[in-house]
């Protein structure tokens, strides 16, 4: 791990981090604010009036408790997509961005091994993602406690967010792998945006139910199941483990590829 490089990446990505956090905060706070034990009836009516559309965004069951309300409202779309944007941008910047603009030539010609550099970048990506989700989790908990004391099941909520972190850990591993193995920035972005979005769309389709439900076996997003996580189902634990393995394998491969690859700098 190289501290100078970590410090540099921190300063260079603080803007992106702040923007993503700010947007998330805005949404989270207004959605927590919207929660009203009686209101879920209205929302359920809305779901009944256009079930397909709401289901596509994972908003099929608003439930009665605040945690179910939050999980359907936030964890079906917003907390999947915004951290994804953050992960895609950061993972591309950390490796292929430097290769593409040539500045990697200066970074790896310092007395630091490629291994050290790529591990530093991977660590930074994971730690940033962890910080992002920790902040949103903490803020949500505090805000819920302020507005609706003792309504939120904190243990279940933390499990839910841990699941979300592992989902994004797996996706970030994939993006980092692409970033380390691509020829140029454009190709890398194409795969990093294309494949997760495709997975998300498949997930949305599978949520519609019926014959399409089988599609859930081909998308990574179904490994993150808010309902099961809240219920602390054992199956959910296996799903978390799979997410962790996917992420760990991707990161390991990414590091190996970066250390071995040819660089034209």
């Amino acid at each position, binding site marked *: 791990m190289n501290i100078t490089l970590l410090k540099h990446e921190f300063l*260079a990505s603080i803007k992106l981090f702040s923007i993503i956090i700010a947007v998330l905060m805005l949404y989270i706070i207004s959605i927590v604010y919207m929660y009203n034990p009686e209101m879920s009836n209205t929302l359920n009516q809305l779901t009944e009036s256009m079930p397909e559309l709401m289901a596509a965004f994972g908003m099929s069951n608003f439930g009665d408790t605040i945690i179910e309300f939050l999980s359907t409202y936030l964890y079906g779309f917003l907390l999947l997509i915004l951290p994804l944007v953050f992960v895609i941008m950061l993972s591309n910047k950390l490796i292929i961005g430097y290769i593409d*603009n*040539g500045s990697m030539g*200066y970074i*790896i*010609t*310092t*007395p630091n091994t490629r291994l050290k550099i790529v591990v530093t970048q991977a660590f930074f990506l994971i730690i940033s993602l962890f910080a992002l989700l920790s902040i949103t989790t903490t803020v949500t908990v505090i805000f819920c406690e302020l507005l609706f004391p003792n309504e939120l099941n904190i243990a279940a909520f933390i499990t839910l967010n841990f699941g979300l972190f592992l989902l994004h850990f797996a996706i970030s591993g994939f993006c980092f792998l692409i970033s380390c193995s691509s020829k140029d920035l454009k190709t890398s972005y194409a795969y990093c945006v294309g494949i997760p979005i495709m997975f998300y769309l498949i997930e949305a389709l599978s949520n519609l139910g019926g014959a399409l439900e089988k599609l859930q076996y081909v998308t990574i997003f179904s490994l993150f199941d808010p309902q099961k996580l809240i219920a602390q189902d054992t199956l959910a634990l296996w799903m978390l483990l799979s997410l962790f393995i996917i992420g760990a394998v991707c990161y390991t491969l990414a590091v190996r590829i970066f250390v071995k690859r040819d*660089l034209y*700098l």
Partner: protein
Amino acid sequence: MKMIEVHSLTKKFGDFYSIQNVNLEIEKGEVFGFLGPNGAGKSTTIRHLMGFLQATEGHCSIKGLDCRQSTATIQKFVGYLPGEIAFIDKMTGKQFIRFIAQLRGLNDLKRADELIEYFELNATGLIKKMSKGMKQKIGLVCAFMHDPEIVILDEPTSGLDPLMQTKFIEFILAEKQKGTTILMSSHMIEEVEKTCDRVAIINAGKIVATEKVADLKKRKSKKYMIEFQNESELSRFMDESYVAEQLSPTKAIIIVQGEIQVMLQTLAHYHIVDLDIISQSLEDIFMHYYETGGQES
């Protein structure tokens, strides 16, 4: 022990050989020029030395350390200037230099400041907004700021104005005095002539020749463009035993190898309006090597 060694280095992309069987040996304190046209394989060879590429065949080492295995150790005493001018755009020149120094674990920026002053670099602005020459100077500062024993420069003067090029040549000569081993690639024969002890000429991925610069100079033919007063003077001159090429009724280019004293004496017998020295381009040198097949040393 040789400072830089390259043994039968070959890099293949599909069916295309980027470089083929390249051999180089550079002694301590030597300034070694690497000449060749664009795409000849200069940068590819240098990238192998920096450990960026995995050779298809052969290997290279710096101070006896394998370039692919011991990259981090090698970087402690090597300075490198990439051929492509590229930095982190969002930083200022100063920030970038400091960043690279910190990555090197270098706390003393005295040498960097000296270099900034020497190259008249204004490093306070954003790199994005700098001219090509300014960016190149930042690269030079980064390559030399840790007082490296060995420096590898990929086309160091590209982007520099003529005044700065002269200053750069002086700088290289001063480094040479200090005993620094330098490998620099170039496609400009003048700067190589002025600084290097030996030179390797590469074309289409193969080393065509490795020569001492002093020998090269001796064998280098010179071209003179001469304008005669009238046609008869020219036709009279064409009977002399010189390799000459007539351009117009009164103009001709003559090629002289080695001594020019004889030629000047001959010319004194003619009425001449103008005499111009045509500096020999790299291409001409190549032509020379194609014709003779080059001398492998």
